[in-house]
């Protein structure tokens, strides 16, 4: 290991240091008491400082050729850059949107922020891994904190149930992933992703790759590995739900990008068919199931399943066009999904989460800006112009058409039309007159800035996408 190696992982190191600092600050402020008493947003400031430091370290590094470190384990290239950006945006928004909720429901702030930062570092490692061993450890580092975060509301039985369910099913999926790594190693004699391209085309390799898809597909909530998502999203405390809904997708799709278009281009006909079939099933099931939901958390869970299907279109299409569309969609998804959850985090019904659709009624009258942000995010999730969701879907469908996958683009467009109904139902309830009884709106400057940033991202990426488009296209130049 050299200094050059260490400077490669500087953003991850900044996050880990901030996580330890948040834990120590919490322990210091709590003293010998049983439960954390540090009510101020000190842990949130530390976490935000860590995220900003990581962003700075990411920014000062010149965007040039790919740099490989740690004996070929870790690669910092254009894809790493965009994945890091998406993961850090998710962490930053997640930190900014949660303090009012953490305080009200007395969740332990130190542990919450430390786990959030370490999970982010895991997603970043997945995006930078050039070896299946590191990909596996990144996946574990991403998902373990999410299991704990789901169960963090100790006094809520539903949260405990969600955490346990996520842990058990996640461990099951992880076992498949490890088995896949073993099979791929057995077939090719290497765990190095850059050398898998020269592996002999034997059935063992196909079996291993299929098992890897199970592990990553679970994290991304692809059909048929999505069954955990609605229950866990509904039971987990809402800031945890908001964060896991985006970071798990960032990490899982970064892993899929590293695995398929980059490492195994020679098997593209085989995995292209498989992923296309999964994408079609995911889009159809996610959107149809979301139609019937009356709980916003469950609705957003199924919407997350549907979006995983859309993003998979880009992976299945492969090539630079598909990969850049995936990276762009991840950035957009972070902004619009966290914006939607951020508005819900401000609401409260009689000491509970206000997670029913009708709780949103009359939001325009009481918190006009929050209602507008929610409407913008819903329009973007539905994929309508002038928001970012429209451009992102456009890139994905264009990539599918370039790869002559007309069916994929067609199913994507049709299911998007279906999704307009349930997204705009939420938006129209929020913009309607009348008021839900007993629903209080909390105001918080910290969360307000986070919401403004998310909304700005949704509109900026939708109206002037040029800069980010150039960034993601530059990121995938190395792909052929």
């Amino acid at each position, binding site marked *: 290991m050299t200094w050059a190696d260490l400077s490669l992982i500087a953003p991850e190191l900044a996050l880990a240091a901030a996580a330890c600092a948040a834990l120590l600050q919490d322990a210091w402020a709590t003293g010998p008491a049983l439960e954390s008493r540090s009510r101020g947003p000190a842990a949130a400031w530390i976490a935000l400082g860590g995220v900003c430091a990581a962003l700075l370290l990411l920014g000062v590094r010149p965007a040039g050729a790919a740099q490989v470190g740690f004996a070929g384990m*870790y690669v910092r290239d254009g894809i790493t850059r965009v994945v890091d950006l998406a993961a850090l945006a998710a962490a930053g928004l997640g930190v900014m949107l949660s303090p009012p909720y953490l305080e009200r429901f007395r969740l332990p702030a130190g542990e919450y922020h430390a*786990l959030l930062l370490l999970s982010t570092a895991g997603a970043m490692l997945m995006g930078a891994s050039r070896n299946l061993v590191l990909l596996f450890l990144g996946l574990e580092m991403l998902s373990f904190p999410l299991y704990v975060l789901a169960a963090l509301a100790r006094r*809520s039985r539903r949260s405990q149930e969600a955490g346990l369910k996520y842990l058990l099913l996640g461990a099951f999926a992880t076992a498949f992933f490890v088995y896949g790594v073993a099979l791929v190693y057995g077939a090719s004699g290497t765990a190095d992703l850059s050398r898998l391209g020269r592996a002999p085309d034997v059935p063992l390799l196909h079996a291993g790759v299929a098992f890897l898809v199970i592990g990553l597909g679970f994290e991304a909530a692809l059909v048929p590995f999505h069954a955990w998502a609605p229950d866990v999203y509904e039971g987990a405390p809402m800031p945890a739900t908001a964060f896991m809904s985006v970071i798990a997708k960032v990490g899982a799709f970064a892993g899929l990008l590293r695995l398929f278009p980059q490492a195994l281009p020679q098997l593209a006909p085989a995995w292209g068919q498989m992923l296309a079939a999964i994408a079609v099933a995911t889009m159809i099931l996610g959107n149809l199931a979301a139609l019937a939901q009356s709980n916003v958390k469950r609705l957003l869970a199924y919407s997350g399943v549907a979006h995983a299907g859309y993003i998979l279109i880009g992976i299945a299409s492969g090539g630079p066009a598909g990969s850049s569309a995936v990276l762009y969609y991840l950035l957009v998804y972070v902004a619009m999904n966290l914006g939607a959850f951020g508005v819900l985090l401000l609401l409260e019904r*009689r000491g509970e989460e206000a997670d029913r659709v009708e709780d949103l009624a009359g939001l325009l009258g009481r918190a006009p800006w929050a209602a507008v942000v929610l409407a913008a995010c819903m329009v973007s999730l539905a994929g309508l112009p002038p928001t970012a969701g429209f451009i992102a879907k456009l890139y994905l469908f264009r990539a599918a058409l370039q790869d002559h996958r007309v069916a994929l683009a067609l199913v994507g467009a049709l299911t998007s039309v279906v999704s307009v109904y349930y997204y705009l139902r939420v938006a129209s309830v929020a913009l309607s007159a009348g008021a839900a009884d007993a629903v209080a709106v909390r105001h918080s400057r910290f969360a307000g800035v986070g919401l403004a940033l998310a909304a700005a991202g949704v509109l900026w990426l939708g109206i002037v996408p040029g800069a980010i488009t150039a960034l993601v296209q530059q990121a995938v130049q190395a792909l052929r």
Partner: protein
Amino acid sequence: MEAVLFGITAVLALAGGVGVVAARQPVHSALALLLVLLSLAVDYLLLAAQFIAALQVIVYAGAIVVLFVFIIMLLHTRSGEGPRAGAGLPRAGAGVLCGLFGLALLALAAGVRETAPPPAPGFGTIQDVGRALFGRYLLPFEAASALLLIGMVGAVALGKRLRPAGDPSPGRPQAPPAGGPARAR
């Protein structure tokens, strides 16, 4: 010779695995697990991974199974007696798992490479493992340490005692507090 040894340990490991699942008493399951772990240690020796074999005996057979037995004794205060309740997979789940296992076996039979190259001299020694761990695999090693930190933080956050109080809880609490917004204490 090696093939015979492998055959014996493989049969023992499989028998132990069946024993873990099929034993009626938890203690017997734990002891069957010990058999699995020891047979795997012999397998590692056959693969020339001597250090890993020693670790397998010390860490898994020595520490982890003992931990299991302790927990069983603490939970079942009557010396680990008592049948377990409702163990066993649903039939459909078992069928799917067997199918997957068969599929993997088929793939193995189709794609296995007959001859593995002989290990390099010094392979599997402590020096060799240490060099790999702190050289080529340094970053995964450090990531694993972060993973252990996460596990500890999670165990403390989820396992420590709470102040008993009827506090407002997120999600749907069993009995919503009567009237009024949340009380902050």
